[in-house]
């Protein structure tokens, strides 16, 4: 267990600023996910926590101790890259015990640690098997075993499930989270897959172009995105944005889209005339014949449980998640209803959310 503090950490490679002043705290025992598109600086941030890169500025604290300048081997942190990197000529026992053998642990202790680790991962019956003949799942478990056998203070994982089948990935997500709970670990996990992040994380930090966009619990980030980037990055399909030109007053409870007043959470800011974007998640859009907000259906994607219907309105394209038994004709004109208590309003230029009653209850990022 460990607490990791990242304080105003920045990293430049030549003239390229990969990380531009990032601050967050990973609590003892939490599963913390760094989420972002490729090139957002998430891997560089993780490598600095591991000690594989030296920050250009800022500090990294591990359990209160400043480890910024310590080399990786002095940090008591285990780094799990893409799993599967096993030694094919060794059996399971030798693979798991390898890190301990390298550090010249006594034989008896290696034996005990390896067996305990294998039990935790439920692969103790495979210890004498060669890794070549194992199923994909068991190979992953062996690779994990090698990471946890040293019982480090924290685990850092860089897209460990990236190479797997989507089905299998879902299964391993569950296992990783369960393992984390069982060994009471602190985990920092990198992914660009929002579903992985949502399924596993206690807290998520979303990064973009070397900066933190938002930090919070998964549901918090999903329900109350603070920027259009976050609203767009999280969710499949992402949040819809309806463009609007308006001037706004504190206390406003509706906004005109295509000339139609749309109810929304009470606004807590005054804004001069400008461009705004009303954000609505696909599952909060429904068809309502009587609604004056009209649009034309241009496509429907059947997903089995639900379908995603794309509608063109005068203010932009809207994707709605509807039950798949709802009959939808491409080309037909429909009325749209938006769930009023779940709407976010953004400044379309800065991308920042406007403060409203929806955002009042949530914790601040």
């Amino acid at each position: 267990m460990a607490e990791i503090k990242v304080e105003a950490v920045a990293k430049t490679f030549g003239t390229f600023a990969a990380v531009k002043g990032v601050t967050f705290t990973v609590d003892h025992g939490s599963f913390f996910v760094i989420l972002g598109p490729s090139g957002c600086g998430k891997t560089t941030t993780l490598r600095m926590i591991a000690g594989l890169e030296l920050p250009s500025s800022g500090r990294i604290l591990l359990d209160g101790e400043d480890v910024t300048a310590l080399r990786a081997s002095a940090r008591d942190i285990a780094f799990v890259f893409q799993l599967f990197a096993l030694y094919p000529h060794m059996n399971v026992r030798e693979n798991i015990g390898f890190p301990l053998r390298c550090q010249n642990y006594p034989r008896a202790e290696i034996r005990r640690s390896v067996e305990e680790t294998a039990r935790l991962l439920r692969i103790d019956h495979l210890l004498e098997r060669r890794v070549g003949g194992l199923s994909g799942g068991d190979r992953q478990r062996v690779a994990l075993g090698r990471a946890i056998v040293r019982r480090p203070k924290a685990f850092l994982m860089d897209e460990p499930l990236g190479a797997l089948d989507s089905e299998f990935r879902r299964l391993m997500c569950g296992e990783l989270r369960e393992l984390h709970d069982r060994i009471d670990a602190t985990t920092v996990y990198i992914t660009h897959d929002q579903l992985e992040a949502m399924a596993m994380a206690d807290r998520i930090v979303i990064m973009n172009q070397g900066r933190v966009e938002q930090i919070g619990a998964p549901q918090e980030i999903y329900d109350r995105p603070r920027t259009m980037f976050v609203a767009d990055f999280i969710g499949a399909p992402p949040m819809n944005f309806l463009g609007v030109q308006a001037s706004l007053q504190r206390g406003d409870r509706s906004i005109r889209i295509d000339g139609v007043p749309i109810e929304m959470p009470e606004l807590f800011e005054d804004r001069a005339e400008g461009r705004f974007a009303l954000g609505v998640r696909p599952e909060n859009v429904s068809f309502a014949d009587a609604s004056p907000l009209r649009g034309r259906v241009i496509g429907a994607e059947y997903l089995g449980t639900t379908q995603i219907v794309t509608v063109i309105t005068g203010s932009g394209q809207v994707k709605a998640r509807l039950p798949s038994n709802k009959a939808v004709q491409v080309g037909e004109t429909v009325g749209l209803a938006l769930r009023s208590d779940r709407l976010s309003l953004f400044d379309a230029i800065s991308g920042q959310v406007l403060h409203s009653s929806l955002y009042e209850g949530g914790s601040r990022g």
Partner: protein
Amino acid sequence: MAEVALVDVSKSYGAVEAVRGLSLSIADGEFLVLLGPTGAGKTTTLRLIAGLERPDRGNVVIGGRVVTNEAPAERDVAFVFQQYSLYPHLTVYDNLAFPLRSPARRVNENAVRRRIHQVAELLHIEHKLDNRATALSGGEMQRVAIGRALVREPAVYLMDEPLSSLDAKLRAGLRLELKRIQRELGTTILYVTHDQTEAMTMADRIGVMNEGILIQLGTPREIYERPDTAYVASRLGTPTINLIPSELLGCDAVPPQARTVGLRTEHIRISSGDRPGPLAQVHWVEHLGDQNHVHLKLATHSLVTLADPVQQLKAGDQVSLEFAEPLYFDQAGNRIDADGSRGHA
């Protein structure tokens, strides 16, 4: 006429039977997706059609011509691999032109230029034509790789998980684009994936494969709503269909041969514990943003279903369940209709 057919094709590698007695026909202009886990035989199937592998048995027919013994170059197919393999020292334009400039099919440079601009426009990479291939983002590189196949007009495009190495966002975008391009050009595509969303959203028909066997072939809706087997039922749908022993359902509509009942999340209604119906306990509620998965305990069995966000459920709650449109499977896992007859031909 670009119909592609496999007739009772088998292929083994040593003791492993990668493809077993596969018969499949892809219609002209069809988008057919083979869906299955790693090792199902999907890629081998593609390679057999491309001519990169010889079948041990059976025939490959393209456009009415048996091509089983022809070399890949003679077959008029284009292959898009999982990993984009562009020539790093060439520009996007020259990468796209490469297949057209091959000595085997000399095309004059004016025609090459016309075709490249057409394809680049389709893929929205027109402004990148002069860039080096290495100066592109992952999504752009994969579009160029797809474009390199599209510049030719083969009988069939064979695509092996072309989107799987991309970010989730890019993948969703390219999925739509690929489907649009296929519709606009009326091309024939055989596409291999393990991703059910790709299969559901792009395919005219899906072929579900497992262990070298084609288990079911049908439109996405047919496969989802009327799966032939419990295996197919569990391949599609998020969360996965609940398969529970039929006696747990406790109602007399269950046909006698049924051993397992399949319940999809949209067919399970949760109401407060005082309503009639089997009682279950809420184990935990998993928040996944757009979906809340409710994990239920029904006697000793676990069910996973979607919760209405307005329904405030918490661990320990007692709820009653109502089921609609259950799917019944016999001992062997084959679906049977409610009247007890086999659910499929």
